[in-house]
């Protein structure tokens, strides 16, 4: 089989992870590993080089209108999922004050004291040619998290 997890369970998991507006901790039962905390709000970070599921990408440096750590995705990151897929509820934008490097990917991090990375992926098209005065915007629903293959 190419898929793994029951769709309803996937929907429940990603809804808990990405639609909660307050921090919460998941504490497994005996033998289930360590507890972990999800700390909204989530931040969108822009990458000049994509990482992988096991390594972080290279984030664009602070300057020219971008601040390392990214920008908030709002109180609630995503809307309730459907068919294992969910997308951002709010738009995110930056006003460039200088020339940007090419952006190839994004990552979504929470805002814990030591932030945790939750999502990473490539852009459909690189962001290139950004200069002073331009705006870079991710509209609502521009970022889709698709867990249907879990």
């Amino acid at each position, binding site marked *: 089989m190419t898929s793994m997890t029951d769709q309803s369970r996937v929907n429940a998991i990603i809804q808990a992870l990405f639609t909660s507006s307050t921090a919460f901790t998941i504490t497994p039962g005996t033998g289930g590993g360590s507890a972990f905390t999800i700390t909204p709000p989530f931040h969108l970070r822009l990458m000049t080089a994509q990482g992988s599921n096991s390594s972080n990408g290279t984030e664009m440096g602070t300057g020219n209108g971008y601040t390392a750590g990214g920008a908030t995705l709002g109180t609630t990151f995503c809307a309730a999922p459907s068919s294992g897929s969910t997308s951002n509820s709010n738009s995110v934008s930056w006003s460039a004050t200088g020339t940007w490097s090419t952006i190839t990917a994004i990552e979504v991090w929470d805002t814990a004291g030591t932030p945790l990375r939750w999502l*990473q*992926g490539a852009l459909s098209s690189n962001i290139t*040619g950004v200069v002073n005065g331009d705006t870079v915007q991710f509209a609502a629903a521009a970022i889709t998290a698709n867990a249907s293959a879990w």
Partner: protein
Amino acid sequence: MYQCKQCLATAKLPPGADPHASTWCGCCPVDHHHGRQAASCPGNGGVGHPGEPCNQPNPRNCPVILGQRTPPGEPGPDPDDECPGGHCGVGVAGCTVCRPITHFAEVGNPLSAEGRPA
């Protein structure tokens, strides 16, 4: 996808295309690179531009340049080439480019986890 901040026209350009090089919106009918022209201008609000001619084609008639926010530069030797307003220098501190645009980004599927075969 891109949107001109001045006329609000939108366009989807092929990958790798420089959005500032295209005349896909109605702000300028002349096919020249706004960013490159602006960056080559020796003036910046008139500073360092004493008596040097404007190198922007037909600046008097250029609707984009006429909308610039920087103060007028000095006139060139030819009255027809008088600079109607300072050119924006791409990359110059405090500058706003001729035709700022909005870059609309989209992301595919951030989650790349794959199911394991049974």
